[in-house]
């Protein structure tokens, strides 16, 4: 089933009876070439690229819950490439380029909207820092423009510019940044993988990883044992539990990050905006809700819900920056489980167990990385070579101390990134 304008017109005129489920609901086979643990954004993207770019279709994605039910359906949907350190820089640049061709590649409307991101700054020092970051973005081949106060005022006239404590000095404008419809990204990749023969197996919890003589041989699941030549652990916030089944400890601490949405409003916020003096960022969804969030709750948590102090903090920051949103009623808040790494950058690598691979440490930036995270993981699984845009995400960088990618220079404390 391919989507097209003509198809939508035809279905609209014939009672929408011709639509079919976007993917099958297969029984697990006894053996696959590759098993991906975790049917989130990264796992599904990996499966899609394994099938579409490497012709490897004897693949199963095992998902404990349902497709789109994890972090890929719980994030604030922001897509950007404004990283500054080598290792991250080329990777997120690669991801943004994949985003830009994603809808054609998947034949699926993921509602990718390059509405622009504006990171506000509030001091001379912060301006220098953002100018440097902008130059790094330009030198990696992406876009960045430094706006002064008037430049920001033209785009965002509704901000409180004259706030006495943190007046707005300007902003770093990343025009190609924006948002995408997160569920559609999961569904699009799921359909892309399924249509090429990948088995997406939902309600299938992995309960053990079989290893013989240092070589992975398959997994135990709630739906029986499945053999595999290669196994990829792509469990995001639950990565530590998955790795534990292989006897591994990961450099990961899981934290809860909250997000919030207001009732639907008429269009008022055209961009993604981040506040430079309080952890607060906001955009408006296509349904009209203001989607916003802030910092981690700061303590380890597997509860997909947060606590009130952080709600208060985020809302205070929002009200300081744009008092106009105070009249909007908050509709929902929720939490996602972040696999925080010690340097704030991800891990995409082999493990010491032959045939066992890991992708984790996505912190709270996993969504924008979905296409590239899947793409480079598929490359690693298929060719056993690191993708040229993901050579820095080594698991052993912590032990060796070589190649730590600490974007925010906060040191080895997991929750500070």
């Amino acid at each position, binding site marked *: 089933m391919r989507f097209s304008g003509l198809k939508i017109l035809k279905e609209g005129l014939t009672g929408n009876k011709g639509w079919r489920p976007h993917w099958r609901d297969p029984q697990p086979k006894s053996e696959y070439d590759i098993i991906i643990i975790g049917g989130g954004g990264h796992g599904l993207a990996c499966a899609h690229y394994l099938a579409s770019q490497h012709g490897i279709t004897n693949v199963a994605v095992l998902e404990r819950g349902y497709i789109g039910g994890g972090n890929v359906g719980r994030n604030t949907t922001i897509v950007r490439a404004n990283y500054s350190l080598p290792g991250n820089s080329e990777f997120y640049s690669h991801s943004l380029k994949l985003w830009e061709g994603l809808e054609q590649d998947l034949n699926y409307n993921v509602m990718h909207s390059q509405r622009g991101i504006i990171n506000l700054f509030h001091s001379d020092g912060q301006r220098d820092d953002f100018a440097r970051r902008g130059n790094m973005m330009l030198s990696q081949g992406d876009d960045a423009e430094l706006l002064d106060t008037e430049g920001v005022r033209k785009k965002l006239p509704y901000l409180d510019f004259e706030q006495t404590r943190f007046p707005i000095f300007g902003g770093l404008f990343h025009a190609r940044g924006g948002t995408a419809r997160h569920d559609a990204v999961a569904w699009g990749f799921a359909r892309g993988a399924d249509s090429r023969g990948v088995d997406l197996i939902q309600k299938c919890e992995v309960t053990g990883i079989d290893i013989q003589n240092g070589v992975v041989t398959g997994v135990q699941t709630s739906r029986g044992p499945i053999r595999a030549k290669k196994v990829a652990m792509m469990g995001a916030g639950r990565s530590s*539990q998955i790795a534990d089944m292989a006897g591994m400890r*990961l450099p*990961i*601490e899981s934290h809860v990050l909250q997000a919030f949405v207001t009732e639907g409003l008429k269009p008022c916020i055209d961009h993604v905006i981040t506040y430079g003096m309080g952890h607060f960022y906001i955009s408006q969804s296509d349904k009209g809700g203001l989607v916003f969030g802030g910092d981690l709750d700061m303590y380890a948590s597997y*509860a997909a819900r947060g606590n009130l*102090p952080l709600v208060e903090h985020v809302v205070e920051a929002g009200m300081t920056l744009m008092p106009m949103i105070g009249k909007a009623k908050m509709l929902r808040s929720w939490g996602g489980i972040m696999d925080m790494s010690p340097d704030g950058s991800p891990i995409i690598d082999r493990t010491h167990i032959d045939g066992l691979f890991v992708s984790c440490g996505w912190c709270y930036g996993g969504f924008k990385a979905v296409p590239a995270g899947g793409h480079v993981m598929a490359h690693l699984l298929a060719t056993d070579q690191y993708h040229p845009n993901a050579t820095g995400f080594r698991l052993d960088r*912590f032990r060796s101390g070589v190649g730590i990618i600490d974007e925010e220079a906060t040191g*080895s404390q*997991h929750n500070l990134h």
Partner: protein
Amino acid sequence: MRIQCPICGSRDRREFYYKGDALALKRPAPDAGAEAWDDYVYLRDNPAGWHSELWQHEAGCGAWLVVERNITSHEIRKVTLAEDAT
């Protein structure tokens, strides 16, 4: 979330700073080797259940505390002074 500070009594979470896994108290010897230091600085058990962790009563008495907290339910069952644990 409230934490029962052994010195100040039950206080709001806002008064406390979270450091992380209480293994921070088990600092290896300087010459313990890369593996021991990797275990200490970076690797974590990260259990989906009971977790022994280090908090500081930053806006109170300033004491460092070892808090036994369930990471899945946020329930706290034991709080002791870190100085007693070392």
